[in-house]
């Protein structure tokens, strides 16, 4: 099905199952421990041997020699894979560094060997017996120092590196009120619950990988390219994923080395990264330096807006596209955005939790708070005044498909009690706490991606959905079941959803908040095809046939849907492809974040007291799992604002705090009441589901609301994340801190 004209009324609009809060259908399997995860596939690959990854001890340079003898003769060792034994390997298009390093080393903890043994303990012990001689080389590990050498990155995710409209420099120069500030965000780690893990088995020249991966088709392609074998020899199975956050978008070392290990050992092998290996071996979110200039008139109306971003990655990598939202969020005729990329020899940077906007808004929305203060306009009102209903770079001929930004601001402010905020900082005290309120815009592009599914129904009216879509804890199983139930008029209990298998039709996968809308739209297309078949079988004209209550009905004639499907059952497969509506219309999701913090008047400890948000993201397919997504994302916003940071050792070139005792993410005690409001919105240009992405929207702007609340509480304006005690204490002079 090609989606290139706005959706009209369709069966999803009945809203009997879709749009209704529903418990996760995979919940019972997860809480009873019966959902099989990648490292636990004893059922599918019994007798798997254990692989332990050895990571490079240097960040840059080369391996001079590897002495495997002691390890090879250690108890239980079955095989050792290194660059010398692996055979010729290619590299997946989506990997920057090689997943198996050597002799050239590209980053710290890059895998250089896999030791395979009959037990986990034996593999890990033997790994310590490897003797590896390295010749380290001088590397580049300091973004600020390399900033001057940054270049224009090639066009990739997020569009061109630079955009412009009008004449930014001239517009900014003549503005009555100016904000011109620099902001920084640190390197961050995904910190998902389940580590990267794979069980691999060969059957002749065919490889099966039970793995934990967000994007099945990408994993197949990149594995085929790396192993130099045909794609149809590779099967990826990833039905359950214990979180990904972008860290599992790509093929990683666990999968490659499990495959190589299984080949070397002649039996199934499983590999999981140990927690302390994850930050340096896998990908992370790159640090950014951002300069924002906003020129406005005295009423806060923006005339000029510029956002420049510097980030770093390994040679051949890509930038953190943190200026994305600035292209679309606020009005202004004179505009400029620019991304620059420096080469760094730190581990590979890539997508994490709403790449682009998540860190772009951390900066932009402080800048807006600074503009609000400079103009004396209330921060909510300032954003309302600068709303724009079309793509401000392209002009009115490219309107938004739907944009309820102002409604989010108004309703969010009202629910939160924003009118009680005292604009002047440092005025409100509650015992030892200085109390402040802050807000920020939420914005995330609405991406769509082609997505396929097949759907079958048997003689008892039981429906099966199959697609290689993944559920990374987001609720994909449930919204797909809801979609099929709605389309076919059967109860959700009659639907079985099978996901995450490369034998199933290719889907959008999970990433960039495109998964839910795209994958359900793909299933919608398959269901339309099945409805046509069923209607034809009944002898009814498809467009007049109603599917409800387990019946296929035309007027007062009806037949049970199972009976129509017959003993042999009936299947249909289709996919959704998106046409030019994404070019004709700017498509994005919107919201407003509100936050109240307390800052200890003496110690500068920050505690978030309340958070609230209002969001407009098209049809909300399952309000329960959507809310879970958004409050989880708001929690990540608190992490980004207050604590998450990989510390770079600029001498050795690695992330020092590489375990979860030292890389802090919020705990329960950090997260207060979170209020989430979804606005009623249907976006007929986004997909037949009239839905948009929502999962990542919640993180976008959340951290800036925390930062602005800290400013309101204390009068201290911090521009370098995370906003920790040391930074607040350094500016206590003249603030409301004691």
């Amino acid at each position: 099905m090609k989606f290139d004209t706005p959706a009209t009324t369709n069966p999803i609009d009945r809203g009997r199952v879709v749009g209704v809060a529903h418990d996760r259908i995979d919940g019972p399997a997860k809480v009873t421990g019966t959902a099989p995860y990648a490292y636990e596939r004893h059922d599918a690959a019994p007798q798997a041997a254990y692989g332990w990854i050895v990571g490079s001890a240097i960040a840059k340079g080369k391996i001079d020699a590897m002495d495997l003898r002691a390890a090879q003769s250690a108890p239980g060792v079955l095989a050792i894979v290194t660059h010398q034994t692996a055979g010729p390997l290619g590299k997946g298009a989506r990997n920057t560094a090689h997943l198996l390093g050597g002799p050239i080393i590209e980053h710290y903890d890059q895998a250089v060997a896999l030791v395979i043994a009959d037990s986990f303990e034996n593999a890990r012990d033997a790994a310590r017996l490897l003797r590896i001689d390295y010749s380290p080389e001088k590397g580049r590990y300091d973004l600020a120092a390399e900033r001057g050498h940054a270049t224009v990155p090639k066009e990739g995710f997020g569009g061109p590196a630079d955009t412009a409209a009008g004449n930014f420099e001239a517009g900014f120069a003549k503005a009555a009120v100016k904000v011109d500030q620099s902001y920084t965000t640190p390197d961050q780690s995904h910190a998902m619950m389940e580590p990267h893990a794979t069980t691999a088995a060969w059957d002749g020249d065919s490889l099966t990988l039970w793995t934990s991966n967000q994007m099945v088709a990408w994993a197949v392609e990149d594995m085929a390219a790396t192993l130099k074998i045909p794609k149809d020899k590779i099967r990826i199975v990833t039905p359950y994923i214990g979180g990904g956050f972008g860290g599992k978008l790509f093929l990683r070392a666990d999968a490659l080395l499990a495959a190589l290990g299984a080949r070397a050992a002649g039996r199934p092998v499983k590999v999981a990264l140990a927690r302390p290996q994850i930050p340096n071996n896998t990908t992370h979110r790159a640090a950014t330096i951002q300069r924002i200039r906003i020129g406005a008139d005295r009423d806060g109306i923006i005339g000029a807006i510029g956002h420049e971003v510097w980030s770093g990655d390994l040679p051949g990598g890509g930038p953190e596209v943190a200026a994305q939202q600035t292209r679309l969020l606020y009005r202004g005729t004179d505009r400029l955005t620019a991304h620059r990329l420096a080469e760094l020899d730190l581990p590979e940077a890539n997508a994490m939790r709403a790449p682009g906007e998540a860190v772009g808004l951390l900066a932009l929305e402080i800048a807006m708070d600074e503009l609000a203060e400079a103009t004396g306009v209330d921060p909510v009102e300032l954003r309302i005044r600068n709303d724009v209903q079309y793509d401000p770079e392209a002009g009115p001929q490219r309107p938004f498909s739907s944009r309820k930004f102002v409604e989010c601001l108004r309703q969010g402010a009202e629910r939160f009690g924003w009118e009680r905020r005292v604009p002047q900082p440092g005025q409100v005290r509650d015992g030892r706490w200085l109390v402040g309120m802050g807000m920020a815009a939420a914005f995330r592009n609405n991406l769509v991606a082609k997505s396929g599914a097949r759907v079958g129904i048997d003689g008892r009216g039981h429906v099966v959905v199959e697609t290689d879509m993944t559920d990374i804890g987001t609720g994909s199983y449930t919204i797909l079941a809801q979609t099929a139930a709605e389309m076919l008029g059967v109860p959700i209990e009659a639907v079985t959803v099978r996901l995450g298998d490369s034998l199933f039709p290719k889907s959008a996968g999970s990433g960039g908040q495109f998964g839910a809308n795209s994958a359900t739209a793909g299933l919608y297309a398959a269901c339309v095809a099945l409805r046509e078949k069923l209607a034809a079988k009944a002898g009814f004209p498809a467009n007049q046939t109603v599917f409800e209550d387990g019946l296929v009905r035309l007027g007062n004639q009806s037949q049970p849907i199972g009976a129509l499907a017959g003993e042999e059952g009936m299947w249909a497969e289709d996919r959704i492809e998106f046409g030019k509506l994404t070019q004709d219309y700017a498509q994005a999701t919107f919201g407003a974040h509100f936050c109240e913090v307390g800052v200890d008047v003496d110690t500068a400890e920050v505690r978030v007291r309340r958070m609230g948000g209002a969001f407009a993201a098209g049809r909300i397919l399952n309000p329960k799992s959507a809310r879970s997504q958004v409050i989880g994302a708001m929690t990540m916003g608190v992490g980004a604002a207050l604590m998450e940071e990989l510390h770079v050792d600029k001498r050795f070139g690695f992330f020092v705090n590489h375990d979860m005792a030292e890389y802090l993410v919020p705990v329960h005690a950090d997260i207060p009441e979170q209020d989430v409001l979804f606005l009623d919105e249907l976006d007929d240009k986004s997909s037949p589901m009239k839905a948009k992405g929502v999962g990542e929207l919640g993180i976008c702007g959340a951290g800036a609301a925390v930062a602005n609340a800290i400013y309101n509480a204390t009068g201290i304006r911090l521009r370098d994340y995370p906003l920790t005690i040391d930074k607040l204490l350094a500016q206590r002079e003249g603030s409301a801190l004691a």
Partner: protein
Amino acid sequence: MKPFTYSRAASVEDAVAAASSGGRFIAGGTNLLDLMKLQIETPSHLIDVNHLELDRIERTPEGGLRIGAMVRNTALAAHPDVRRDYAVLSRALLAGASGQLRNKATTAGNLLQRTRCPYFYDTRMPCNKRKPGSGCGALKGGSRSLAIVGTSDACIAQHPSDMAVAMRVLDAAVDTVAADGTRRSIPIADFHLLPGDTPHIENQLKPGELITSVTLPNPLGGTHVYRKVRDRSSYAFALVSVAAVFDGQGGSRFAFGGIAPKPWRVAAADAAAAAGAGAVAQAALADARPTAQNAFKQQLVASTLTSLFRQKEARP
């Protein structure tokens, strides 16, 4: 983890006898096992001391409190005598780790837990404490969480315990028995050692010496406060912590965590209480040698004391 043998001691005598031929005691295992998995500790023999009858809390004839070495942190924090007479200890324990860890962690194990310096944990990095003579990775690297006072050029690691800070302010004593049966009572002030040139030697214990209990002197009365400042609300090690007892007659005692290689207490700081938080901080940190990354801890010690003085004033 290197292969190791394991035995379960049935009595204190049994335990120390077993240890005389090498081997390490294991209590809750919440620190030792983690270190063994990373091969930072590589004992070839483990002696399980969980089944010795060292899990009692009893009053001493003098009116103090004897805490068995195997008393779990949860049980100690909840004990009515501790809550009544040594509230600072209960509060410190509850500020540490998580509920699950405290259920497992023991009194002796907590005292002996090792530093959280990230370079200590990465065996590819230089670390004098882990590998004497290899250098200190942290001194010119990531040192934000590490110690500012009592350090040396060889090591700036902090002692991470909360419990030990409260025990230090209470002037506890560590009771031990050696392989030859000798018993000693080591004042907690002397128990932990500063790094000097030998950061791998962290305390007074001789090889095979077993901690049997920790004894608290008679209750001090007064107001007990424990204030722990960290980068998140719970389940994180202290940037700075302060244990304080105000006796109500103008006498005060302070011990500090997160800032030194051992629970930190300076007589001059106790004496400076009347002059206020700033004076206490100054006395406590007289010899501080922070790095650029952790210099803020000096200010934070003062702020935490200010907060704690305020908290005390606010109490009836």
